[in-house]
């Protein structure tokens, strides 16, 4: 079974994003970039499926800038077999555009399952997986905390508003992964070295023929209002008194 795993290069999750003074966007110059944490989880899951003999080939794909090759190398070092960069240059594509590009990649690769992070921690849209499933007319199982693939079906336990839900989807399907699915491994040094020799195809964005025209115009990116500084209280009794008399919330 072939598994396609989309990965995105984003600001490292430990770094606090800073807005540019001219409000044109978030300043990413000289900022540490990493693989989107949810995508690490989907790569890990694909590798575990391969280790169990369920997956036969893992193809990692990124739609992004030239530097996303580093992110793909990380996926290869974790255990992906080969990688595809759809080079979008400096364009920041909207989720619908990314989904359309991925649809074109799916048409070329014919995977039986797409394992995708539920959300990227920059745009916070939580949309590409669902959009890809819609464009392909495939079933979707979002926010997975457990995945079983067998007999042409995916049995997926999902994190929903009130707890957990289990669905069974016919393959091919799109599964978006949530935090509790697994704990991603660190790539070992030998595997990082091996990853350098694994195939990584670079395709120009235009070669896929997807409609990537932006639908939204970003007017500005501003800092959120800051909370006024608080005070330290001396004791639990002091705290309760202040909550009653000063804050009026008790």
């Amino acid at each position, binding site marked *: 079974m072939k598994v396609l795993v989309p990965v995105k290069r984003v600001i490292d999750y430990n770094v606090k994003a800073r807005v540019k003074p001219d409000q044109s966007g978030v300043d990413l110059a000289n900022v540490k970039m990493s693989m989107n944490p949810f995508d690490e989880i989907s790569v890990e899951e694909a590798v575990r499926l391969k280790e169990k003999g369920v997956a036969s080939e893992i193809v990692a794909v990124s739609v992004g800038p030239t530097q996303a090759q580093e992110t793909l190398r990380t996926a290869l070092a974790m255990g992906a077999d080969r990688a595809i960069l759809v080079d979008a240059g400096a364009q920041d594509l909207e989720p619908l555009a990314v989904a359309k590009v991925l649809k074109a990649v799916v048409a070329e690769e014919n995977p039986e399952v797409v394992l995708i992070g539920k959300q990227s921690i920059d745009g916070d849209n*939580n*949309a590409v997986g669902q959009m890809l499933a819609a464009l392909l007319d495939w*079933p979707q199982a979002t*926010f997975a905390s457990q995945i079983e693939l067998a007999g042409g079906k995916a049995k997926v336990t999902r994190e*929903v508003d009130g707890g957990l839900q289990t669905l069974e*989807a016919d393959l091919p399907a799109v599964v978006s992964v949530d935090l509790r699915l697994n704990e991603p491994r660190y790539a070992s040094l030998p595997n990082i070295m091996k990853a350098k020799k694994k195939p990584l195809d670079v395709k120009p964005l235009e070669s896929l023929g997807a409609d990537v025209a932006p*639908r*939204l115009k970003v007017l500005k990116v501003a800092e959120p209002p800051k909370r006024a500084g608080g005070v*330290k209280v001396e004791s639990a009794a002091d705290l309760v008194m202040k*909550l009653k008399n000063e804050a009026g919330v008790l």
Partner: protein
Amino acid sequence: MAVLVIADHDNASLKDSTHKTVSAAQAIGGDVDVLVAGQNAKAAAEAASKIAGVRKVLLAESAELGQGLAEAFEGLVVPLAASYDAVLTPATAQGKNLSPRIAAKLDVAQISDIIEVVDANTFVRPIYAGNALETVQSGEAKKVITVRPTAFKAAPEGGSASVESVAAPAAPAKIRFVDQQLVKSARPELAGAKIVVSGGRALGSAEEFQRVIEPLADKLGAAVGASRAAVDAGYAPNDYQVGQTGKVVAPELYVAVGISGAIQHLAGMKDSKVIVAINKDPDAPIFQVADYGLVADYKNAVPELMTALG
């Protein structure tokens, strides 16, 4: 101009996030209709008809809608969307599951998790875990939007809209519901609670989480939340998670116990009116957003707090 709001409900009753999404719809302008899709959901539809300013309520019922299958919602909402300029859904787990599927089928962008309606085409939404606020303008004739409920006031009661039944879509062919395990709790719902008590990694075990956090929550009439670290470690169930990728809450009072305050956690609670942090590490980042910080070990501080509350 007409706006369709997809209701958040449990068939028997309507969630407060629906009232808040109706407010966002009213800020966009035009007639506002509410779609209640579920199974045996008449009571929820009746509740929606009582929201002030709602023109009509559409009620669609089938097993698959009741199970929340995104494919069923696609079959229902995509044809309905022909009569509307915008489709709004609360940005709950369910809203996030179904709305992008509908947007892609309509070939429009989704404007995700809006916190402000500037005008009918312009919206503000948090990005980068809420560390930046993006103002976006849409030129599209039809808009698909998810709404962060905590950013809008609930539309009041006082309406008397008619409830109209609409045909349920065909059952999705390629996906089926197997089962669900929902957490039952007598406490208020986390997303809409006036007070939230959350526990973090410092609690150290599920037993300790229950021993310390739950009685404090019950004393305050609060909902219980947790940091990602506490949920990952199995101290609390997944639907307790407050943060960038969990639930976003904005209660009157948020009490963080043993939570260090990672960026991702702050993203889910920093719009709370009053924040209290109890942590033994005086340098914990949670203190930077806390209105009242108590530097103390929770093991002593929480029992003292229980006593002081009387």
